[in-house]
């Protein structure tokens, strides 16, 4: 919105920084300007809170490292879609992808056909599903980058289209043939090698999907020329064009990569449900809104050009462990409702904090 100042988090040292800044003031400035520090503090606060509640016997089940580790299974799709949103939002000019959940549904059905019905080898089916997701993302990228659609509109349209196709493609029926059901083993927990006896078992999906994805996205953003171009066009695409950067191609690829990640998430969710469900990514509130929430909470500026992989991953951990604790703090399904309260409060809080940070430590005016 044009009333709001662009959300920059870059600290501007010349604004109000007296040389004799006290320890408290410095701490406050670091917390407000370094999103990763804030998230780390919040994670510790959440975990400690629930540990104390657990020790006091207020929770319906123990909140310990085993439980926290098991809860990580929810982090896999959330963080991967958060990273997809990171790439798209970074590309700037109102970049956003509302269609990731619908791509998850549609690619999941494609995976169900390839692996569950036609008996493709697993690795080929996964590669083909990821490629299909990339194709869906490329359609978004084409519309946004080459035709000039506002991202919100293009991805809203493809959200409707993909969602509809995913349901129609198999007459609203899920695919849960035996090979698909066996995929549930993808979401089991494994003991780590070497020191595994001393730490809790970790869900397999963390190692097979989330960690490789996070590392690859980090390399892409922080260690390749493409990443630098993406930050450049997100910060100021007019300047980037005058600097001779391929603005359209760079933005197009961001959407395609987001689609690719959504395709991988489709495989993960099919494994988790042991079934390719036509509404996997759009049921309830859908997957896109939580993913955007994670990205924003992780310090990604909605105006583009600012955001880091570590922020998104930490934001995911915060939400996942917070949600896991809330589930134990309430009897019955009230916990699910309080998760909404927590998510909404955290998001509003983060947004207001961004505004405060701008004004106090280098706001735009």
């Amino acid at each position, binding site marked *: 919105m044009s009333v709001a100042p662009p959300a920059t988090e870059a600290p501007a040292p010349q604004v109000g920084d007296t040389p004799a800044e006290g320890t408290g003031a410095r701490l406050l400035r670091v917390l407000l300007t370094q999103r990763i520090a804030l998230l780390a503090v919040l994670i510790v606060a959440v975990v400690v809170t629930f540990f104390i509640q657990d020790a006091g016997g207020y929770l319906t089940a123990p909140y310990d490292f085993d439980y926290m580790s098991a809860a990580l299974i929810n982090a896999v799709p959330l963080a991967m879609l958060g990273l997809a949103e990171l790439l798209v939002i970074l590309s700037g000019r109102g970049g956003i992808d509302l269609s990731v959940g619908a791509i998850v549904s549609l690619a999941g059905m494609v995976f169900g056909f390839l692996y569950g019905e036609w008996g493709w080898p697993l690795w080929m089916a996964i590669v083909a599903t990821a490629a299909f997701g990339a194709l869906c993302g490329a359609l978004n990228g084409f519309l946004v980058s080459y035709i000039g659609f506002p991202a919100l509109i293009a991805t809203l349209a493809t959200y409707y289209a993909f969602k509809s196709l995913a349901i129609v493609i198999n007459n609203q029926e899920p695919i849960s043939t035996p090979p698909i059901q066996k995929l549930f083993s993808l979401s089991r927990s494994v003991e780590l090698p070497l020191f595994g006896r001393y730490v809790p078992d970790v869900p397999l999906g963390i190692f097979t999907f989330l960690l490789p994805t996070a590392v690859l996205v980090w390399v892409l953003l922080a260690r390749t020329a493409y990443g630098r171009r993406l930050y450049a066009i997100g910060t100021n695409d007019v300047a980037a064009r005058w600097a001779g950067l391929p603005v359209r191609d760079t933005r197009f690829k961001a959407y395609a990569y987001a689609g690719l990640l959504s395709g991988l998430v489709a495989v993960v969710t099919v494994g988790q449900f042991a079934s390719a469900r036509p509404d996997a990514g759009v049921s309830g509130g859908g997957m896109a809104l939580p993913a955007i929430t994670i990205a924003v909470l992780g310090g990604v500026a909605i105006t583009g050009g600012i955001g880091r992989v570590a922020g998104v991953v930490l934001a995911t951990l915060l939400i996942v462990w917070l949600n896991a604790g809330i589930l134990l703090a309430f009897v019955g399904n009230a916990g699910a409702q309080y998760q909404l309260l927590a998510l909404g409060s955290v998001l509003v809080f983060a947004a207001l904090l961004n*505004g405060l940070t701008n004004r106090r430590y280098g706001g735009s005016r």
Partner: protein
Amino acid sequence: MSTTAVDRHGRPDAGPPPGAPVPPRSRSRASVLPSPMTGQEMVLVAVVAALWVVLGLTTPAFLTAGSLQPLLVATAPIALVGVGMTIVIITGGIDVSVGAAIMVCSVVTAKVLVTDEVNLAVAVLLSVAVGGLLGLINGVLIAYGRVHAIIITFGTANLFLFAGLQIFGSSTVNGIPNTLDFFGRGPGGRTWGVPHAFLLTVLVTALAWWYLRHAAGGRHFFAVGGDAHAARLAGVRVQRRVLLAYLTTGLLVGLASCFTIAQGTSTLDQSVGTGKELAVIAAVVIGGTSIMGGRGSVLGTLLGALLVQSVSSGVTQLGWRSQLSDLFVGIFIIVAVGADLLRARARRSR
């Protein structure tokens, strides 16, 4: 982006200079206003008409009162919220919390109807008041918290959902009396064969159309969306305009919730309002309102909502899978906005 500050004819889209008295001669004022009907709206009228003719020829039952009345009733809530959403988007914002807000208003009103058996006027006032409160929360946060509308409304959507579910109390609301049948599908909800819900929607749309086009306050919404900074320098109270836009949306959400209750059965379940925010935004963008702000019309939104509802009604009557209508909605968004983009490009190159 540069098109937002320029009207259809390539002239500066100023509206009357804010603060300055409106020029007395209507001819000179008319010359700075966009034409009463934009190209997008004329295209939409043609598309809806063509669709109705095609559907009328293929399924004889389509062009009958029994088919068109439910169509108009179903269009009403989307179009009504769409009026508010159009104003919000004109100011350069967006509100993705309307689906959740519809849920809160519906459940509060339904519960009060069940327990206190209030009459129609009280129920409507209550629902509108609740909606206005929710809109006020959004408006205050966005206008004075100076944060991005899409982020704040994602957050408040979650908070509203929480509030709504708490009021639901993990069950449905049963035995809703037929107090609101004035807005419903039944014979009590029609005058001369036209559903009251649709009549009210047309009335609100007409008022909003006049206000946005001819009142200084209405032009200020466009000024804010075109360039908030310039608008502020020109004397527009930007924050108040932004607040008003979200407040209006909230009030209309309250009225639309009454329509929603009236259209349903005597049972209200927790899925009420789910996904409505995207349906409303779809209607607004199909209607030719620029998501970048500064340009748009409520008339287009009404036509957009009518088009979307006609498509889904037609898909059902043709015996296709009802989910296919979403595919057509997606295609219509692409075509409608794409046509608008092409026209903008043509304007620029001229």
